[in-house]
């Protein structure tokens, strides 16, 4: 089932929660609604579910207008952020609730319901907890019960509101993988709301980035990460290093810092956005860039060594005036960068924003690089 959202407006008093939002959610795909708090993502999800009504606009499932259809009759699965399990019912009763709420004609017989419940308990790997009450479960278990409950009536659409928001990191990772498998197995059209960009990029087929009630950009995770349309999306999707300066004769400069931009004609103010992996560190400036930075901190945790640096003789925009560069552990062992050392950032690929609302131009220095990067093979 495809979901089409057309021209949705929603206002809470003075606050414009959604501003003329239109979206296409493809069938069988897992779509993430990503944005900071108050970006309208949860409101949009609740409007699609029918828990909230839009001031204007239309929601359609597979081309059929459901704007006026009551949430009860939309046959969707909905998972709440705080699980919303029925606290006085057992796990089994919770899961059976949707089936038992079906109109008498469609309701399966008691034995059939019991069978379906035990299948679902099997699927969420909690058959031994069937007779427990929600208060006796851990957060991860509650969320799995909530998922089982929401899909018991076999809806075609599954909506999840910050499904992993209240869980700790380890459980979150497990559940994420589990949800992906579940989705692939049952072929729902799923939408989940999250403020965690990593979660959105990792889990979904399509990401909808929202900000202040507007859709900023819609794309596949890899495309979105590689080619953000706007400064907002760039900022929101992970760490970014910014050089803001004066662009003149194909050269962007500010204070001590200078970067040559081959093939750029624009003059005036401009910002160069660089991802941590699009920059490497050298002990001498490159021909095309002079970006002196002093190392503030080195973090060895994770699959990559994260180096935090402070601009020397110029200033970065945002992120507390800190640049972040990721290097491999092999590179780290080679160079041994330490706090207080001076390094020069050498950009390999960058994204240049010139006008106010224009899309960025991607600049690559791969050939201009006078210090060819030695790729270390592990």
């Amino acid at each position: 089932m495809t979901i089409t959202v057309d021209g949705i407006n929603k206002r809470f008093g003075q606050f414009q929660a959604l501003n003329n939002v239109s979206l296409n959610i493809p069938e069988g795909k897992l779509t993430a609604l990503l944005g900071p708090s108050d970006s309208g993502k949860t409101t949009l999800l609740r409007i699609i579910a029918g828990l909230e009504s839009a001031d204007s606009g239309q929601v359609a499932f597979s081309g059929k207008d459901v704007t006026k259809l009551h949430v009860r009759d939309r046959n969707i699965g909905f998972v709440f952020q705080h699980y919303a399990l029925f606290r006085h019912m057992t796990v089994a009763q919770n899961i059976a609730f949707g089936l038992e709420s079906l109109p008498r004609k469609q309701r399966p017989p008691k034995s059939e319901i019991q069978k379906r419940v035990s299948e679902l308990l099997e699927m969420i790997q909690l058959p031994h907890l069937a007779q427990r009450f929600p208060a006796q479960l851990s957060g991860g278990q509650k969320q799995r019960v909530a998922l089982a409950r929401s899909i018991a009536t076999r809806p075609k659409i599954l909506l999840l509101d910050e499904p992993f928001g209240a869980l700790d990191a380890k459980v979150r990772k497990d559940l994420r993988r589990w949800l992906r498998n579940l989705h692939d197995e049952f072929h729902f059209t799923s939408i989940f709301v999250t403020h965690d960009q990593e979660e959105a990029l990792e889990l979904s087929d399509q990401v909808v980035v929202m900000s202040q009630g507007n859709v900023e950009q819609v794309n596949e995770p890899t495309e979105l990460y590689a080619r953000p349309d706007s400064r907002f999306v760039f900022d929101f999707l992970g760490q970014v290093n910014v050089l803001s300066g004066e662009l003149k004769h194909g050269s962007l400069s500010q204070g001590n810092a200078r970067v040559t931009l081959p093939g750029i004609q624009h003059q005036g103010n401009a910002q160069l956005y660089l991802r941590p992996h699009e920059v490497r560190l050298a002990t001498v400036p490159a021909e095309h860039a002079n970006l002196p930075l002093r190392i503030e901190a080195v973090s060895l945790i994770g699959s990559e060594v994260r180096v935090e640096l402070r601009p020397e003789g110029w200033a970065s925009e945002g992120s507390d005036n800190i640049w972040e560069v990721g290097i491999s552990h092999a590179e780290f062992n080679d160079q041994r960068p330490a706090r207080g050392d001076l390094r020069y950032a050498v950009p390999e690929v960058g994204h240049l924003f010139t006008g106010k609302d224009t899309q960025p131009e991607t600049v690559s220095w791969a050939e201009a690089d006078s210090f060819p990067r030695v790729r270390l093979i592990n």
Partner: protein
Amino acid sequence: MNATQSSRHRRVGDSPAIKWLLIGTAVAVAIALLIMPLLVIFVEALGAGWGTLADNLTDQYTLHAIGLTLFVAALTVPLNLVFGTALAWLVTRFRFPGRKLLITLIDIPFAVSPVVAGLLYLLLYGRNGWVGSWLADHDMQLMFSWPGIVMVTVFVTCPFVARELIPLMQQQGSEEEEAGVVLGASGWRIFRTITLPNIKWALIYGVVLTNARAVGEFGAVSVVSGNIRGQTNTLPLHVELLYQDYNIVGAFASASLLAGIAVFTLAVKGFVEWRQTRTLNRLQTEEAA
């Protein structure tokens, strides 16, 4: 060293002198103001033996007063049960202008003296009142008969159920009910299988309080009932009437009945309260987790 350590560990209020002084005062006040009078009621009622007590309670007028009191309570409690639940549902599940004002208005019966409330009803629904004169033209009498007694009792006791439910329903939020609708449940099914079990104990507590107050209400009822023996005399009014007749033993006999109901109510209330704090504690630990 030891002395300084133990004094550092002493918390506010740990001084034994203060502790026992406070406990002693509380016990003394409780005995003088609560326990002694309660005991006196039963002692006086039984002063002339069980037989006299039984005679007094089976007196024609006393029996009628008991009947009327129970009748009024039997009408008041269900009315306020429905009204209080609906009101609590309204102010906790919907957002509308004037909602805060409505929550404040619920407390009016607590703030207004019952005698004043009775007078207002008399002025409005009495034979010469605005509404009352119209009703009198149509041969309907509310004041100085049982409908008037029920009306003022409903007024005086209407906040109890709503007051108990509102904080609980606010804390529980409406997510479970939303989950129910998404799963396709009808409004009635949601109320019966989700809302009602969640508010059950608070509801019972509210009913117990409503009932206690409905049975014991004196001021408002005394204004609108007209104190007609054997017709509009409730148990509290009957106690006063007997006392004014110098039938002290009779008055105490009826009073012991009211006191008995009060003690029983307290026991039920204590049990329900204990159940409820347990639920609330569980809610809070759940939220903290």
